[in-house]
């Protein structure tokens, strides 16, 4: 893929997408539940979604920059940027939403041994296995390293006992990447990173109902769960480094939520409030706040682009993940609040015939976004990270 000239690559990509992206995959998603998450339990309600996933996965374009030996496309960052811009050009939906793609895959590529990579990465690329993240516990939220889920060495296997919480879509997942305690005498240095098959005896999940009415998160219980020895990634007690690395990917990704093709606050406001004879939004105060938000969104997108370029040029920008996570959460909440305000009473529906799907999506999206500043590290924790690691502000100097 690196031999073609940039123009040829773009032209070929455009032609392929034109021929292979099904029509219904070029429309904005009306609601979150139209996303393809893959995995053994996933039911495709739209056959074109499956077609789109399979075609993209076959080219490795669900994970364009991953090495081709593990099913990726091995694209250079420049080629990937072209692919993404071509996807945006036709408003293509992402073929696959996946914690495997966003979080686990990148750390497996970095920390896993070759058997583990061969076993797990191609299935992530193809959307065959859906992963969930076993991080937070009832007693370990912001203070993640305080986790207590026990992992004992039983000779030919690990034995796991404990409870996780806020496990996103654990009830739909096939496998879980999980932080466990292998040494209770130390804190960060006693944590290991294991991969657990959710069909193992002793695994139980219970969905938690949220203010949005949805249950994206679960409680996950592990009772005498046996895990094969080869399922530990990295060394025993070496999991915290992997955990932190994965959080950087997670934070970058959560902060990217809401940047996809979705309902636009300007369209909602124009329809709901109206415009004057020159096309300006009638509510001038709201208009100014929307304009400010639009600029913030632009500033954010430009900053992601700048960080990407700087990373490519060899700069270490990993510390920026916390800044992006906090800023992205704020932006998404700002956006969804403005949408509710712009929609007026049309955003106060909860169900039934009186409200349209789009309107209900605004309401649910607004409530869902409240989690953005809590999940994957609260905004406060991320600001702590920026203050300490980036600015060097500490308790004592």
């Amino acid at each position, binding site marked *: 893929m690196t031999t073609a000239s940039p123009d040829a690559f773009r032209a070929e990509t455009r032609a392929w997408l034109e021929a292979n992206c099904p029509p219904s995959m070029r429309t904005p998603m009306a609601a979150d539940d139209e996303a393809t998450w893959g995995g053994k339990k996933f039911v495709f309600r739209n056959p074109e979604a499956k077609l789109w996933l399979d075609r993209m996965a076959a080219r490795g374009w669900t994970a364009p920059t991953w090495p081709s030996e593990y099913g990726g496309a091995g694209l250079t960052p420049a080629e990937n940027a072209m692919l993404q811009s071509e996807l945006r050009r036709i408003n293509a939906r992402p073929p696959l939403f996946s914690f495997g793609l966003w979080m686990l895959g990148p750390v497996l590529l970095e920390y896993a041994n070759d058997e583990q990579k061969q076993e797990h990465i191609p299935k992530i690329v193809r959307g065959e296995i859906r992963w969930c993240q076993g991080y937070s516990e009832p007693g370990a939220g912001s203070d993640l390293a305080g986790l207590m889920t026990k992992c004992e060495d039983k000779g030919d296997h690990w034995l796991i006992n404990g409870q996780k919480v806020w496990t996103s879509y654990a009830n739909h997942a096939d496998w879980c990447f999980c932080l466990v305690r292998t040494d209770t005498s130390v804190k960060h240095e006693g944590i290991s990173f294991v991969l657990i098959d959710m069909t193992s005896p002793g695994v139980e999940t219970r969905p938690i109902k949220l203010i949005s009415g949805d249950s994206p998160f679960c409680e996950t219980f592990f009772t005498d769960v046996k895990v094969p020895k080869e399922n530990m990634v990295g060394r025993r007690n070496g999991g915290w480094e992997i955990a932190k690395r994965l959080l950087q990917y997670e934070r970058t990704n959560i902060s990217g939520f809401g940047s996809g093709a979705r309902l636009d606050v300007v369209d909602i406001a124009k329809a709901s409030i109206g415009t004057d004879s020159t096309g300006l939004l009638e509510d001038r105060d709201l208009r100014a706040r929307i304009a400010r938000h639009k600029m913030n969104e632009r500033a954010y997108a430009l900053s992601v682009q700048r960080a990407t370029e700087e990373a490519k040029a060899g700069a270490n920008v990993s510390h920026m993940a916390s800044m992006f996570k*906090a800023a992205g959460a704020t932006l998404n909440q700002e956006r969804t609040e403005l949408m509710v305000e712009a929609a007026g009473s049309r955003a106060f529906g909860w169900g039934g015939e009186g409200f349209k799907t789009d309107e209900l999506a605004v309401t649910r999206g607004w409530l869902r976004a409240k989690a953005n500043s809590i999940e994957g590290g609260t905004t406060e924790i991320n600001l702590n990270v920026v203050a300490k690691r980036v600015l060097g502000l500490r308790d004592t100097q």
Partner: protein
Amino acid sequence: MTFSLSEEQKLLKDSAREFVRDRAPVTRLRKTRDEKKNGRDDDLWKAMSELGWPGIIVPEEHGGAGLGFVGLGLVLEETGRTLATAPLLSTAMIGAAALLLGGSEAQKKKHLPAIAEGKAITALAIEEGAHHNPTRVAAKATQSGPGYVLNGCKSYVADGHTASLFIVSARTSGTAHDPKGITLFLVKGDAKGLARHELVTVDSRGAADITLTDVDAEPLGTVGEGAALLDQILDRARIGLAAEMLGQAEAAFEMTSEYLKTRKQFGQVIGGFQALQHRAAKMFGELEMTKSCVRAALDALDRNDAKIAEWASLAKARASETLHLVSSETIQMHGGIGMTDAHDAGFYLKRARVAEALYGGESFHRDRYARLQGF
């Protein structure tokens, strides 16, 4: 679009940082203020001219360096860091851009080399009220022989007290607020009938109100269609000023975070207190976002992007908001010492408010951005 800097641009930035650190630290502004020079610092301008800064965007054929807008923006960032007081934005950005965009070949030939050498200092005289409003033009231009004479008043002309060449908006037809009928003119600083009323300003840079009474002037660009040209010139002014403001905000922030690491209360450095840590972390985020906007806008100028107006309003609005926040927090986080004249914090605050309003503040540019985006 790219955020990457060329080797030449990096070199320019580094040498500018070194220059302002050695030759134009804030103490220099303090000194010119204490000596009641009201922003006049001929030696500094001469030194900048020797480095070729006034001619950074001027093509080589007209005696400049032809290094483009990113190059000039990087230098403005650095001069902003120490509040270096010189007519660099007015001349190197606004004057040069005005002639490049609207000048006839003869006008370019006459004025651009003088600008590039630092011999001419230009100023943009366009406001007629206390708020930025480029179409509010009552000043009148009347044809007289081969040229024009101007009558009217212009307020708060940045660098107007030292300029040798003015770019003035006046009306060749239409009524006040009508974008049609505005024409830009070049007016010599020593022209008969031009009176300057020097303003002693809070940022210690000085400015002037200008009164024009039957002043000879030559049109810059097409007569009657100056509003569009002015908008283009202003967008360059806004982006250049945003670069200066970014540098200023970055320096104020660095000064503040250093203070947080050294000032002790309750037996510990105050930077250990979360109430301050979080505000500092948020400022850092705002600065990074604004930097991206400013750099992208400069790059857009070099690429001759079709949407310069959007880039300019984005950069200026973001720079104004960020500098407002950072300059206020600089005072607050320094506590009592920040309120004293002996500390530099006050210089940053005072310049901040002037720069925020100049060529349009946050509300002006939000309104403009929304309009450009169709709402």
